Structure formats: C-alpha cells, structure tokens
C-alpha cells in the first residue's frame, strides 16, 4: 500500500505537536512575561494565565483531561493550534452536537444547521454521526464516525479522530463484538487511547493489576473507576449448551445474537432441511389434508437468511450452504441497486443536500462491507467491483462540481483503503484522487 499523503511521520508529529509549539509558546511566553512584569504590577499572574490558557494550552489541556473535563480540554487544544483557525467554522458543529447529546432540545437546530450547509467540514461529519446515533440509526452513525477517521490530518482535526475512535470502540463493545472493538486498535487511521483499552478490558474481564496503571493515565478517574472494577472481575467461562432442536436453536440465536449461536442454528437446520419436505407431507396426510404440502423449506431458508443478515455473521463456504448463497445473493442485489442509484445521480447531476449525499455514499460502501462481513475475504474483490465506479464517480462529482473537497478527500481515502484491501485495479485512480488533497477548506468548483 502506498503511503497516504495525509499520514504524518512520527517525528513530524512529535515536532509539530510537542516541541515546536512548546518552543514557540516558551519563547513568546518569555517575551510577554518580560514586557508584563516590567510594565504591570500584576504582570506575572496575567502572563501565567495567557501562557497556560492561550499560548501553550497543552498544560491546561492535560489538567482538564485529568479532571475529566475532556470536551473543554479538546476545545482548548483546538484553540491552541493556529492551523485550525483556517477551518474554525468546522469545529462548532462538533461542539454543538456534543452539547446537544446532553440537551436533546438542541438537536433540531443542529440538524437544520448541518442540512443547510453546502460545504461540509470534519466537524459536520462528526455532528451528523452523533445526530444519527441520537435518532436511533446506529449503523449510519457508525459509517459517519468511521468516515471522520479518514479526514485529512493536515486539517489538524486532532480531537475528532480521538472521539470518533472512542465512540466506535464503545459501540462495538455494546454490540458484544469484542473482536470488532479490538480491530480498531490495528486500524491505520484510528486514534486508539488508554480509555479504549480500558473499555475493552472492562467488557472482557479477567484483567491483571496492570489495569490500575491504565486507569491512572486514562483520566476522569471517578467515572472510569467502575471500568477497572469490571475489568478485574473473573472472566466468565461457562459455555452455553447448544440446543439440538432447530426451532429452539433459532430462538437461542435470536435471543443471544451471538455469532456462534447463529452459526449453530444454521448448521442444525442444514441437517434437518433434507428431511423437512417428506416430514411435512407425511404429517399432512396424517392430518387428512389433500393437495401440496406447504413449502416450509423456502420459509426456513428465508428466516435463516434474515437472521444471518440481521446479526452480520460470517458464514464459511462449507457451513452456510444454500443460506449463505441466498444471503450473499440478496446482499449483492442490494449493493448493485444502491450503487446504480448513486451512479445515476452522479450522471444526471441530481443533487441532494450534502449531508444526504454523504449518507448515501456511506450506504453503498456499507453494502460492500456487508458482503465481505458475511461472505468472508474471498468475496472482497468481486464485491468491491460492484461498487467501485459509483463510489469514485460520486466523490469526484462532490469534489469537482459541488466544491466539497474536504469531504470528497475523506471519501476517496475511505474507498482507496477498501480498494487496496480488495486488491482492485481502481486503487491507482483513487490514490491519485486522494493525492489531490483536501483543498484549503474553501468551496471551489473545477469545471
């Protein structure tokens, strides 16, 4: 995989975030303190307030994170980064959405403000994700939070990837998918924090005393203390006994939602399906019925396909049989329909509000993800081929004609990562689009 133009080298990150700003703050602070202490009687406290609060807010940020006021801390951190000033408009929707999570009466205003925007920034994506979460659309929220991670790092959106990663980890853990939560640790764009590790440990249980060290550096100690207690409790080891009755297996899978339970239900029905039709026909004759026995087999396969799709359970080629084929067929049809619709709107220049454009784009990529999630890695290349053109062309339209370079750049990057994983030839084109950069945040049309 080529180097992402927005990936920061470690040394650059360190110099930029720590040394350079620290040095600059120190020099400016030195100058200011000299002037103030010479000319004003109360110059030293004023200088300290300026130095800590404005020139180098990293110190204030560290204190605020320590006491749990992390949103204020992030705001201060943002204020201290001069490069963010070019995109100041973008942080407000993120902060407004965070406030609206606390005070839901604000949602209408935040939602309207985002929908009215013709050019979206990183903060708008974050606000849209929180809004979708609040409105009970977790899948859409997950897609949008994921997209926040792909915003170009040159925009210095530092708090947003951190918040988005924490949100994605918590969301995966709440679904009971520890594997997905752990997957974010290895994600190249995620900003994994100690809080994420603490959350994973709390769900898994059985953590050693080292978790106290993790807690000490995670901040907001009075809140995260409960996570340490959860992490220290013994890990549950009792296996759930699987039922032999296929109908009960369906119920168990529905109740627990556990991937193993869903696979067990599918496997149990696979054993019973061949004998189902003769059994129903024999029973019908016994009951005195005439005519054709009802096609329960079709109904069973549909119920299993719905179950597998609802819980997004990966089925191996040897364990799913007809159910797997049916699910994958349905998912491919859905992906084609969504991609065709997106392509049609790009071709016919049929615009939606920008917020809806992003959601529609994410839905197409989600359709591809669903195929890979259920069908496994072998489906990746073929599934990506279904959606590639629509994803790329739509992002190009948003970039060139609708002046949304920041969002389009994130979309290109997201699609590029998917294309590289799928080893699709479209990755070269996407890389060159990513390489165009996110612009300077001002709307611009190229033709």
């Amino acid at each position, binding site marked *: 995989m080529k180097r992402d133009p927005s990936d920061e080298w470690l040394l650059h990150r360190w110099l930029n975030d720590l040394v350079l700003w620290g040095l600059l703050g120190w020099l400016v602070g030195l100058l200011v303190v000299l002037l103030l202490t010479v000319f004003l009687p109360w110059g030293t406290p004023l200088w300290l307030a300026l130095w800590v609060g404005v020139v180098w807010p990293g110190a204030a940020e560290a204190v605020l994170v320590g006491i*749990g006021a992390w949103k204020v801390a992030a705001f201060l951190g943002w204020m201290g980064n001069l490069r963010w000033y070019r995109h100041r408009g973008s942080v407000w929707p993120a902060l407004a959405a965070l406030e609206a999570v606390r005070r839901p009466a604000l949602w209408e205003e935040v939602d309207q403000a985002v929908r009215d925007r013709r050019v979206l920034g990183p903060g708008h994506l974050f606000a849209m994700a929180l809004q979708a*979460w609040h409105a009970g659309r977790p899948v859409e929220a997950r897609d949008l939070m994921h997209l926040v991670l792909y915003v170009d790092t040159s925009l210095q959106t530092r708090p947003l990837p951190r918040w988005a990663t924490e949100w994605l980890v*918590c969301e995966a853990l709440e679904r009971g998918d520890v594997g997905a939560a752990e997957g974010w640790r290895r994600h190249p764009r995620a900003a994994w924090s100690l809080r994420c590790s603490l*959350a994973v440990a*709390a769900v898994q249980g059985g953590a050693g005393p080292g978790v106290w060290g993790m807690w000490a550096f995670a901040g907001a100690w009075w809140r995260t203390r*409960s996570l340490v207690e959860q992490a220290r409790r013994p890990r549950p080891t009792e296996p759930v006994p699987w039922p032999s009755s296929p109908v009960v297996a369906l119920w168990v899978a529905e109740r627990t939602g556990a991937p193993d339970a869903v696979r067990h239900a599918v496997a149990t029905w696979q054993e019973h399906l061949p004998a189902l039709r003769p059994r*129903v026909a024999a029973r*019908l004759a016994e009951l005195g019925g005439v005519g054709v026995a009802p096609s329960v087999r079709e109904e069973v396969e549909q*119920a299993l396909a719905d179950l597998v799709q609802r819980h997004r359970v990966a089925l191996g080629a040897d364990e799913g049989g007809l159910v797997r084929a049916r699910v994958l067929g349905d998912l491919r049809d859905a992906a084609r329909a969504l991609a065709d619709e997106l392509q049609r709107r790009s071709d016919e220049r049929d615009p939606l509000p920008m917020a809806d454009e992003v959601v529609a784009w994410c839905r197409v990529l989600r359709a591809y993800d669903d195929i890979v999630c259920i069908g496994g890695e072998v489906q990746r290349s073929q599934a990506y081929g279904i959606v590639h053109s629509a994803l790329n062309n739509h992002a190009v339209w948003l970039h060139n004609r609708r002046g949304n370079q920041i969002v389009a750049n994130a979309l290109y990057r997201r699609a590029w990562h998917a294309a590289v994983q799928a080893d699709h030839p479209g990755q070269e084109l996407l890389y060159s689009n990513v390489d165009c950069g996110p612009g300077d945040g001002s709307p611009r049309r190229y033709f």
Partner: protein
Amino acid sequence: MAHDSGSATPMSAPYERNPFHVLELTPEASAVEVERAGQKLLAMLGVGLEAAAGYAHPGGRAQREEADVRWAMAELRDPARRARWEVWWAPADALEGVPAPAPGPDLFRWLGWRR
C-alpha cells in the same frame, strides 16, 4: 398483540408467533382439543378474565386478544397450515436454561458520552 387476523405470517419471523402457543397446546393436540381450547379462551376473554389475557412463548410472554384466538383456531383447522406451524413449534419453556444477554457496562456514560 395487535395484528392482522387474516394474515398467515403477521410477524417478521415465522417462529415468533405460533397458534399452538396462542391456544396453549402442543402439536399432539387433536382437532377437538383445538376447538375446545379456543372456545374456552374466547369465553374467558369475553368476561375479561386476567388469566386469558396473556400467553407464554419461548421468547417470553405476549398479550392475547380475541382476534389472536380466532386466528389461531383458523390456522390449526386447516391441515396444511397446521403442518407448517408444527414445524415452527418449540416448547414455551425451551429457553429456560439459556441466559439472556447480560447488560454490559454503560461504556458510553463512563467514557463521558451521554445519550
């Protein structure tokens, strides 16, 4: 449970609602037993007896109305449809040993997110 009494599959999955559960019978029940159970439940619901207002199924308990009982009787009178429902039947207490998923820690709240 409000539903369209004429529909054979009023809910999303066919195993979620079964006429045998509505009438509190098993697939071994004869046609006479089906009629008797249905009439008894209709009479009980007619006078508003609390005992007839709900029934157990593997997923928990559901409300029972007169329309449910009539729908269940109609389904089990037809041999073809009855044979289908027998496939989807499981004892109401089938999940007794299966633990419901325990609510996990409220991670969002502990990490500073509110809903």
